[in-house]
């Protein structure tokens, strides 16, 4: 869809440009001109602007007082509260990614190996959460998890126990993990689906038992799918705002929540920008390290 639009735009640019007749050496760049402009205008410029204002002081009336400062970065990386927010965010992303792998890989594997009818059903079940709006889905969890909610209602009636399920990291993890699960299931499913059916029999014929055939053949060949899935989940969790805010407790503040509160509630744009910068850099570095690690360890060509 986007490709079609870009292709049409490129052709349009070419047609318009024809009479002007730029030197030939620009020809090779013409097709990338439109996407490049798009990225420049709608991604690089806003990000550069956000990073830029993060170095100036906040002013309650003019929003930005153009005095250079690195105070926000000192706070974010030095103050124990803000460091704990960053640490919480990273930890949450790890937990959610790990849960998504532990449950998503077997589901993806099952979906790839089962009968076409069951595959349809399983994929539908996995994708259903994505079709429900974020807030509606979260309120669904609240109905389940609340102190007088569905789960506690059952528990109270059956065993007389009441659990505190809402407003904690558990609720946030469940809320995020449930919606991000398809992002692991789908690439794992497609990686396993792409594998020729004869590889496992071949491994077994050569003397590997079923478990060894999985570990040495199926797992390494599906790793690229698993890795891309976990990177999606990790990055999206790092940047999550709504779910931690609605399902989390007072201490469940992610960098995203911090950024949101500063930008929207306090109107402290420079601080919000600095938070966003720290978050983006941290996410990029962690993803890069993870990528390097799996690539080096597993010998996966991605």
């Amino acid at each position: 869809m986007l490709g079609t639009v870009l292709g049409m735009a490129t052709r349009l640019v070419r047609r318009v440009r024809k009479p002007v007749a730029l030197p030939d050496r620009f020809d090779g760049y013409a097709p990338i001109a439109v996407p490049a402009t798009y990225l420049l205008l709608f991604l690089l410029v806003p990000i550069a602007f956000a990073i830029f204002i993060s170095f100036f002081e906040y002013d309650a009336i003019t929003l930005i007082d153009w005095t250079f400062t690195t105070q926000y970065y000192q706070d974010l990386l030095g103050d124990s509260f803000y460091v704990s927010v960053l640490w919480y965010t990273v930890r949450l992303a790890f937990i959610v990614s790990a849960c998504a792998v532990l449950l998503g890989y077997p589901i993806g594997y099952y979906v790839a190996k089962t009968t076409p009818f069951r595959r349809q059903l399983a994929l539908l079940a996995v994708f259903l959460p994505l079709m429900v709006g974020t807030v509606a889905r979260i309120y669904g969890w609240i109905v389940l998890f609340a102190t007088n909610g569905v789960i506690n209602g059952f528990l109270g009636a059956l065993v007389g126990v009441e659990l505190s399920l809402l407003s904690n990291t558990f609720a946030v993890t469940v809320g995020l993990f449930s919606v991000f699960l398809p992002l692991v299931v789908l690439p794992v499913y497609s990686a396993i689906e792409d594998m020729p059916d004869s590889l496992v029999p071949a491994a077994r014929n050569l003397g590997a038992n079923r478990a060894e055939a999985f570990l040495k053949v199926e797992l390494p060949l599906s790793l690229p799918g698993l890795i891309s899935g976990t990177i999606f989940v990790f990055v999206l969790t790092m940047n999550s705002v709504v779910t931690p805010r609605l399902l989390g407790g007072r201490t469940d503040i992610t960098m995203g929540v911090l950024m949101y509160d500063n930008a929207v509630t306090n109107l402290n744009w420079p601080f919000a920008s600095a938070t966003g910068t720290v978050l983006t850099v941290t996410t990029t570095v962690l993803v890069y390290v993870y990528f390097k690690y799996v690539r080096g360890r597993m010998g996966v060509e991605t």
Partner: protein
Amino acid sequence: MSFVSLQNLTKEYGDVVAVDDVSIDVSEGEFVSILGPSGSGKTTMLKAIAGFVEPTNGVISVAGRDVIGLPPEDRNMGLVFQRLALFPHMSVFDNVAFGLRHRESLSKAEIETRVEDILKLVSLPGYGDRSITNLSGGEQQRVALARVMVLEPDLLLYDEPLSDLDRQLREEMRREIKDLHDRMGITSIYVTHNQREALTLSDRVLVLQDAQKVRCAPPSEIYSDPQSEFVANFVGDSNFISGQIGRQNGAPVFETDSFSLPLDDATADESDSSVLYIRPEDVKLNEPATTGNGVSQPGRVTGTVHLGSVTEYDVEVGDRTFLATDLGAPRYEDGDEVTVSFADYGLVEA
């Protein structure tokens, strides 16, 4: 005691019988092909031998060991897959060493020597570090062979390994397989629907039709004495004529409404309906008849196909059309009047 023995092998999938009571004994070092059209149960037989399919009934023993119930990894058999099933994430070396690392407690150095040796044998010396995905079709084929041969298995199984290759490469690999078999002497079972591969590679050919064994004999015998219409048609082309067997002057003859042919087969019983097969290369045009009483019929060429080394003719004799082949370029054109004689023919079961 034969080396590989299948007794009354049967596999049913619900109501469908995939393999129906097939028995065969293979001696050590023998190369046996299982030949049949698709759906005849040949791959199911192979899977049962390799341990991927549990037979409904029957006995499979290899090297004096009953293998039914053993998992595939404990059967010490090498299976060459139709689509090769090489591990794309491993180097050539790791592919070939895969089995060695599982099967025995070999030292690293021993594994390296054996892999190097086998790569030399399949003419891929020094290919160990290459990635599988960068190899040509023929090279991948050789790796697939090396991967199972390096284990020196009791039995080698081939599941139509050449069917995906182009003609030239197929010929080359066919010779290679034959050559490797001659050198290594590993007992082999080769599944194919390609009669050419079956006839040229094997010591014996087992022909399957609708899950049942219809013939098991050396290739030359299968071709010269097919015994059934199915085999005669499947292994090479044939002209079939129905008629009856009668006697002329005490000797058996094959009679149709328009001509009769003397039969060598003295055992042929008189019967009202029987089928005669004539190989296309035995249908001679404008040649003095070489057998029997020299029956020759007037005919007319109605079709000519030049296939390169041979030419195929459709020849009309009375109300029958015969397929005839002749070496070399076409000598007749459509509409030419010819005399037709039969150099050889035989009876088959209908």
